[in-house]
């Protein structure tokens, strides 16, 4: 069984995030990393390989040249090869365009199982796994907490709003995993050195035969009209408990008609 893992290069959580002039997230000059939530997907793929269920792990990302760092990080954790879709025309691509590009790349990678994180830590849309699956006409199971593969099918345990479910889907399939699926390993130096020797293939839009007018800000099905900082919350009152905090807090709730 071949596994493809979709990963994303995102800004560091501690960086100061801002928008560039074109109202896209300013990624220049901001430290980036493999999205923390994607590390769980990488971990699950490696565990399947370690358990003998997978024979090959490929990573796929679409992003600027620096996004190769995310691929290298994943390769340092484990896995075999990586594909980086990089093209100047991709800047500003929306979710729909990204899904189209990733689906085109996945058709070439031909994986039996596609694993993704539950969301990216920057855009946080969580739509990409399903959009990719829909484009590939694959079953998708999102938010898996436990993941098993046997006899050509995928079994997932997951929590929904009101229940814990066991969901089965035939392979090939796509699954997104949550942060409960299992702590991601910390890559060893040995892994980092090995990762330098693993192949990373670069594909352009032309390689994927995707017309440039379907991607980038110009080809996006959505447009950003305005960005502005959230109005600052009015500075609140902070008191130190001297035995009267409960009464003062109750006063506050009452005054705001919250009791």
């Amino acid at each position, binding site marked *: 069984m071949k596994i493809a893992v979709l990963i994303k290069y995102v800004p560091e959580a*501690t960086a100061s995030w801002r928008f560039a002039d074109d109202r896209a997230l300013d990624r220049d000059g901001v*430290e980036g990393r493999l999205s923390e939530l994607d590390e769980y997907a990488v971990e699950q793929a490696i565990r399947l390989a370690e358990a003998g269920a997978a024979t090959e792990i490929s990573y796929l990302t679409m992003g600027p040249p620096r996004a190769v760092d995310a691929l290298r990080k994943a390769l340092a954790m484990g896995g075999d090869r990586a594909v980086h879709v990089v093209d100047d025309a991709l800047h500003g691509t929306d979710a729909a365009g990204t899904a189209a590009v990733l689906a085109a790349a996945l058709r070439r990678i031909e994986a039996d199982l596609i694993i993704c994180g539950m969301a990216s830590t920057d855009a946080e849309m969580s739509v990409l796994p399903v959009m990719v699956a829909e484009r590939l006409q694959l079953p998708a199971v999102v938010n898996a907490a436990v993941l098993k593969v046997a006899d050509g099918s995928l079994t997932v345990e997951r929590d929904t709003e009101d229940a814990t479910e066991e969901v089965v889907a035939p392979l090939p399939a796509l699954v997104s995993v949550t942060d409960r699926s299992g702590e991601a390993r910390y890559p060893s*130096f*040995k892994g980092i*050195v090995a990762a330098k020797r693993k192949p990373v293939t670069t594909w352009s839009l032309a390689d994927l035969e995707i017309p440039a007018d379907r991607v980038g800000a110009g080809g996006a099905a959505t447009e950003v009209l305005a960005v502005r900082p959230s109005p600052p919350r009015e500075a609140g009152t902070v008191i130190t408990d001297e035995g009267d905090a409960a009464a003062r807090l109750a006063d506050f709730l009452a005054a705001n008609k919250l009791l």
Partner: protein
Amino acid sequence: MALRLILGLLMTAVAFTVAGRRLFMLYRLGRAAQPADPGRTRGGAARLRAELTEVLGQRKLLAWTVPGVAHALAFWGFLVLALTIVEGYGALFQRDFHLPLIGTEPWLGFLEDLFVLATLVSVLIFAGIRVRHSPAREGRRSRFFGSHLDAAWLVLFMIFNVVWSLLLYRGAQINTGNFPFPGGAFASEAVARLIRPLGAGANDVIETAGLLLALGIVLLFLVLVVHSKHLHIFTAVGNVAFGRRPRALGALLPVYSAGRPVDFEDPGEDDTIGRASIEDFTWKGMLDFATCTECGRCQSQCPAWNTGKPLSPKTLIMGLRDHALAAAPYLLAGDKSRVDALATAAAQTPLVGVDGVVHPDVLWSCTTCGACVEQCPVDIEHVDHIVDMRRYQVLMESSFPPEAGVLLRNLEHAGDPWGRGAGARTEWTDGLDFPVRTLDGERLPDDVEYLFWVGCAGAFDDRAQRTTRAVAELLHTAGVSFAVLGGDETCTGDPARRIGHEVLFQQLAAQNVETLNNAGVRRIVATCAHCFNTLANEYPQLGGAYEVLHHTQLLSRLVADGRLVPVTPVDATITYHDPCYLGRHNRVFTPPRELLGSVPGARLTEPARTRETSFCCGAGGARMWMDETIGTRINETRTDELLAGRPDIVAAACPYCVDMLGDGVALRRQQDRVDEHVVVTDVAEVLLRSVREPAGPAAPLTANEPRKAQP
């Protein structure tokens, strides 16, 4: 005479063969080990000084008075006894042999007898110590717990035998008229008087038998020595000669493979990173293992051992030695398939592992406080070995206590253990009534005297922020111009290096060195003892040479120069806790005490373990970021030691210590075991309170809310 000669030489030949084979094997084992880091022979003067003070002068042994004196007696006794052995061999050939030149001087006879008796006294003292502090009586508290006790007793017994057999021989020699000394040898003469009534014939026999017996016992002793911990008699000289000078504390060495520093950007195919197995240790490591005398001074001071954890520096080194010897036949064999099964199994036992030579709990219990290295009379470099083993575990196996992953990830992604990131580095300046200059990538202006290295704790930890602000205010008051790096500062890399993640350390350190060099920084003041140590001792390894001061050093100078004047009395008993990385590792003992001493009203008390023997707070060696689940907590043990002097203020000079001890005092307060008013604080805060005018707002000292160390 001929019989005497033949028997004597025969015995000697057998003993030398047995001992020689052993020594040759040990030599081959040392040769098979990795080359040591370069610099083991550099600095001849310091090495000679160490030989004179530590070997001849017995300096480190004498730090423990009774056992130290006993050992000095035995050591000097053996040096002098060596003369009697030469005399004995001479007497094999010529019954009345004497050493040339001084061989018949009565004072030499006296000296020899004096040290023969001194050796006997030392044996008795040693025996007394071993009985009194036997593990059977004291359990884990005994420094001999885990040592090879039978071998130690056997050696004492053999020394005793050497003494009496020698005296017997010498007494008979007097009676037969073959003794080289006309007088002075008082003890031998006493024995002579005792056995004279046996008659001339008997004394004749006793002389020969005594000589062969004495030589036989010495030869047996030689064989015993090369097969036991008493090998240190020979190896200690070399181990001290090739040890790190002035001591194996302060900086950690970079990662060496085959004697060359490893280039982590482009590592060689055959590079060994850290210690994966026993043969990855250097010959100096092997020499360390061979030299351990199992005396347990290290164990008696080890914070891990003293709080019920499985790590004892002594048993760690003993375990490595025993393992090296068990695996030696395999390691030294040309054809490995013909090695016996036991040795093969030993060689294949993992170095670190639950079923390995070193249990992971042992490896991860170390706080790198250096108490063991400080104590070791033969200069074994325990901390270096532990970090080297950690290096392999972290870098190659990615194996470490899982909670430490948070530390490593935070360092990697945010540049600090708390994971707060550069943006929050100057939050501590909020509310100061003077501006703090922040470089933010600019060059250090010429009028700025010091770069104030704030440190991650100083920037992000609640209590440490107060110290940072206190130091800033004191410097401002004293008119010292300083600047901070602001968001360009990152962790110095101390916790990364000490957990064994050398790659991460190199990255962080290289980045800081570049920042500091680009800013033209020459003089740095740091509040964190760990930052101080890394900046001062480790950054030179990466091309960053600065004059680094700890804040207690700078503040003490400012007080001495009258630029800071403590005026307001602080009516309190203050106990000062020496942070390991300030005191033991860097020998800064006096400045913090001078500072506290300069505060009117303050009464300084010393805890039982202080200065060189200070007891770790539990946070070093990246332990700050690991769970402490085995035994009792180190910080509580140290807190109790400090509170024993009933202080009002526990003062430290390192944010980690203040945090750990603060937690300890808070816990004891919850348990009503310490008075409400007792606080833990940095020395600088005490000084600030005294420097401020009495009319000014009294700076309340750090409160003791328990804080979670985890980021």
